[in-house]
């Protein structure tokens, strides 16, 4: 884990030149002791804080808080969630992540998920909201085993919809890599650059939609869920099962409409109550 944390390391001079920019790191290891999921290690630094509310859910719940209150160019968050054999963790965020107009550079968020055999992790951050001029690059690397359970979602809303904002310049990049037993089994590179609303207008991209989500579930016998998931999402998106994975993609005209499908979907796939932040 320490190794992963130092990967954020840049030279001291680079750091001081960007000292005004937000930096945050957090790392968690959860293990199972006496039949319960417990924190075995917690590290947090900078603007990224983790809270562990007591909830009726069977596992542990971690809520990430970006005390910088949003992200802009040059900001960098690094987080790692590791769940050891037999343990269960749900990780979410206290609020939507707002990506503010960047004067230079882009915000970077790097997430690493490690799920041991017979362990379960639900990685359910709330939506990212891309403001006009906002720039963000996210990476999500997951390492799982054949008997691991991993549920994850990334969802985004383009523009501050209450203000009727258009995103005519922006950058949104999301890179997922999922390895099972060391082999890359799923990769996804989502990228919307430049005139994001113009780009989103094409039929093959978002068809004018303003919010989208990708959900991935890995568990033994996952394909048995496919029919139920298709019935649940209806015309809001598509679902497919292959190679032990279930992938769901959703499009919606607004963040609110997205939640109307996403919340029931995640509730069905999470197998326990969603953290309270996930309400419609």
């Amino acid at each position, binding site marked *: 884990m320490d190794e992963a944390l130092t990967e954020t390391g840049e030279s001291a001079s680079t750091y001081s030149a960007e000292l005004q920019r937000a930096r945050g790191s957090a790392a968690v290891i959860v293990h199972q002791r006496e039949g319960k999921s417990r924190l075995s290690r917690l590290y947090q630094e900078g603007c990224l804080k983790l809270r562990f509310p007591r909830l009726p859910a069977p596992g542990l719940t971690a809520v990430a808080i970006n005390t910088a209150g949003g992200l802009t160019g040059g900001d960098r968050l690094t987080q790692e969630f590791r769940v050891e054999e037999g343990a269960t963790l749900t990780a979410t965020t206290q609020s939507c992540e707002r990506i503010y107009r960047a004067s230079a550079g882009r915000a970077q968020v790097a997430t690493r998920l490690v799920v041991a055999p017979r362990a379960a992790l639900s990685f359910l951050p709330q939506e990212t909201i891309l403001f006009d001029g906002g720039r963000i690059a996210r990476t999500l690397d997951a390492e799982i085993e054949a008997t691991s359970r991993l549920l994850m979602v990334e969802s985004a809303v383009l523009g501050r919809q209450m203000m009727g904002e258009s995103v005519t310049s922006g950058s949104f990049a999301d890179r997922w890599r999922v390895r099972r037993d060391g082999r890359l089994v799923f990769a996804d*590179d989502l990228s919307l650059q430049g005139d994001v609303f113009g780009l989103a207008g094409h039929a093959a991209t978002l068809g004018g939609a303003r919010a*989208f989500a990708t959900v991935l579930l890995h568990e033994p016998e996952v394909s048995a869920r496919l029919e139920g998931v298709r019935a649940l999402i209806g015309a809001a998106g598509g679902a497919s*099962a292959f190679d032990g994975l279930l992938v769901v993609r959703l*499009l919606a005209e607004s963040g609110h409409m997205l939640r109307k499908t996403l919340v029931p979907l995640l509730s069905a796939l999470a197998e326990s109550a969603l953290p309270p932040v996930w309400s419609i």
Partner: protein
Amino acid sequence: MSPSLIPLLTLMSPAFPVGAFAYSHGLEYAVRARVVGDADAVLDWIETLLRYGTGWCDLLLFAEAHRAAAEGDEARLAGVGELALALSGSAERRLETIGLGMAFRQASRPWEASPDDGDVAVAYPVAVGQLAGRLGLALDEALAAFAHGFAANLVAAAVRLVPLGQSQAVALLRRLEPTLVELADKAVHSDLDALGSAALFSEISAMRHETQSPRIFRS
């Protein structure tokens, strides 16, 4: 004349026996859902995939496989092979790229039967890029030919689905020429860091096609 021209014309010909005519890459659902309904919409659909979707990503995977094979770098080749399969994000996307890739390997044996042919699943852009690299075919021309094949196959699917007349199909290919040249050239100067797709509805179409009935294409 470029020595690459003749082998590229053969390997990328619509008549090359990989069964490409059986795949619509999700277009069949988009037409049935009335999202794509005329020649202009077909043009926009194909251009979008080439610029911001699977067409662009396939060009990058092709170029990486070409370079790795030309340099004899087996580890790099294995890496792009694994990545290309992993990037195919739904059941029919995998069926399509593996179906085409395996058929291409089989059909291209007269050029080179490589020792690792076997039954190992290979994605289509990697299978073609790898052979083109091993044969020393010029990367820029090979990319242009591959991009043309991607577009021509979607145009052929649109002819059956929309439907379009042959003269409309030819006009579409003419209109696609500048885009094909531009993106093949861009891919020559890019690497895998440039991977990125905005074509979410195309992905959803491929997923929804799985339960479409009746249907005439395998994807």
